[in-house]
């Protein structure tokens, strides 16, 4: 009964077009921000921060990137991980090779580098569609990882391309503890998520969705296909690039190109399918789900089936559960967890008097 919008009248279009037009949602959002921004780093332990919360945030950012391209602009990509790799290695090289490079600037430059590469691999989208394009993005996936391994310059001549991220220092403060890294990641990801949300609710986002839903009509109404698609590739790759850089600097620490393989690209795709295609919030839900599921299964499967089955069984079981869930969501709720959340809210509005 607490969730009611009765009595909240919107007198201007500005009020009507807010991200959270309903007061309860707004309060809920700020409570969440306080919990995850302040309470969580103060109260949780290192394992939670390092193994769950930081990766969830970083994958959310990558998922937002893919969602912009696939969910909003309708261009299926199977190469997200490669653009993360570009971001990670670009950040590494900017910091390595330019004296006194501030971390945040390096992060932006890494994103821009990924965006440039993204535009390059987005060019085929002007002529080809659908899964033809999906196959084209596989070219990016294989080529980029290959290039990062084969040309030692990218990894400063380390063997098989392994690099260790430098310290993260902003204005003289070094983010060394998991808590500090978490807060930094949290701030960056929240800010970028806000930017993404703003883009998709304004003309830029409408252009993407128009091209996704019916490209001929989009052109007839005046959108330029080339500009719209390439912008989607650029922005999407920027997000993936920054996510990749954070992956190296605030999560893993030591990365190699092979770590950004096709499996990771698929994982990010799964995040948006399960979380919600075409939803910024869904990107967070999906990332959390995909990160937590294996941890959950690792703990639960031996309890249910006994310890005798071995690690192979658990990992195969995971494969089946992953794949099964994808199929399940595509069949039952193609808009994913985000849609389920929306339905729950609509129900809640009427609860406890649904008639």
């Amino acid at each position: 009964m607490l969730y009611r919008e009765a009595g909240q009248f919107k007198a201007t279009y500005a009020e009507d077009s807010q991200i959270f037009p309903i007061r309860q949602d707004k309060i809920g959002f700020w409570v969440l921000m306080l919990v995850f921004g302040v309470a969580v780093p103060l109260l949780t332990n290192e394992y939670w921060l390092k193994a769950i919360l930081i990766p969830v945030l970083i994958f959310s950012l990558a998922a937002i990137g893919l969602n912009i391209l696939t969910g909003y602009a309708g261009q299926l990509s199977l190469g997200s991980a490669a653009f993360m790799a570009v971001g990670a290695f670009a950040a590494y090289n900017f910091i390595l090779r330019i004296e006194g490079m501030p971390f945040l600037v390096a992060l932006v430059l890494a994103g821009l580098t990924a965006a440039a590469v993204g535009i390059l691999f987005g060019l085929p989208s002007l002529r080809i569609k659908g899964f033809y394009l999906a196959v084209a993005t596989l070219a990016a996936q294989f080529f980029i990882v290959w290039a990062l391994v084969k040309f030692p310059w990218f990894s400063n001549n380390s063997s098989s391309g392994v690099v260790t991220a430098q310290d993260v220092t902003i204005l003289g403060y070094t983010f060394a503890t998991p808590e500090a890294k978490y807060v930094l990641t949290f701030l960056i990801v929240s800010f970028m998520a806000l930017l993404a949300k703003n883009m998709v609710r304004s003309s830029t986002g409408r252009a993407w969705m128009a091209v996704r839903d019916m490209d001929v009509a989009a052109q007839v109404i005046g959108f330029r296909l080339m500009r719209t698609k390439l912008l989607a590739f650029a922005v999407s790759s920027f997000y993936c690039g920054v996510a990749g850089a954070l992956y190296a600097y605030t999560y893993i620490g030591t990365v190699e190109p092979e770590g950004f393989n096709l499996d990771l690209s698929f994982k990010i795709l799964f995040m948006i399918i399960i979380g919600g295609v075409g939803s910024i919030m869904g990107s967070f839900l999906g990332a959390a789900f995909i990160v937590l599921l294996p941890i959950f299964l690792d703990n639960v499967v031996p309890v249910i089936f006994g310890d005798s089955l071995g690690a192979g069984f658990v990992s195969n079981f995971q494969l089946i559960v992953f794949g099964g869930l994808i199929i399940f969501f595509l069949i039952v709720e193609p808009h994913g967890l985000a849609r389920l959340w929306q339905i729950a809210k609509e129900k809640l509005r009427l609860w406890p008097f649904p008639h």
Partner: protein
Amino acid sequence: MARQIGDVIVDLQNISLRFGGVKALTDISFNVKEHEIRSIIGPNGAGKSSMLNVINGVYHPQEGQIFFKGALRKKMEPHEAAEQGIARTFQNIALFKGMTVLDNIMTGRNLKMKCNFLQHALYWGAAQKEEIAHRIKVEEVIEFLEIQDIRKTPVGRLPYGLQKRVELARALAAEPHILLLDEPMAGMNVEEKQDMCRFILDVNDHYGTTIVLIEHDMGVVMDISDRVVVLDYGKKIGDGEPDEVKNNPDVIKAYLGTTH
């Protein structure tokens, strides 16, 4: 009546269009004058939709010339046609299915919006002001077409007749000089048709918008058109005011078969 038929605004000369070996249009010439309601009629497969697609640059004819506002138009892409003030609805509704009615209509304003994606990302100052200024314009169109109650509904959930109306709204939001309507009344019942006729006449009357209309309902066509062009098998067989066309023997033949 307030409106005054003006000069020729679109002039099509000897247009031929082929897809591989199939001739869709053969040597067709006709013109559209400013502020008029110009109808294109003809049996199925006569090339009517292809004609509209030629006018707004979706198809590029192999032969012939198109003059727009007196100037020869080179090969033109659809978005360029839109920039010059040509808006359009489609035979098979071409709404953006994943978006709400409001967002669909807002897309019609895209050419008038000047902020770039970075400003959109910040959604502050100019970008927000612009969004709201255009929202006000869109609300005018919504009110005009009487679709206030569905503005936040995803278009996929709407019945056919309303979808057609939303598509018209999207085209109107662009404040076009020329409006191309491809069977706006197909599949509608009598009441819906009456509403649609009223909207078309109002648009023409209030804003002076030039309208090119494809329609199968002869009653409607003869009632609201200023001039009618008749196509059959990709060729022009009649052109003129409704009464003229009605009595044209070739037209009667095409519609009713040969009379003895």
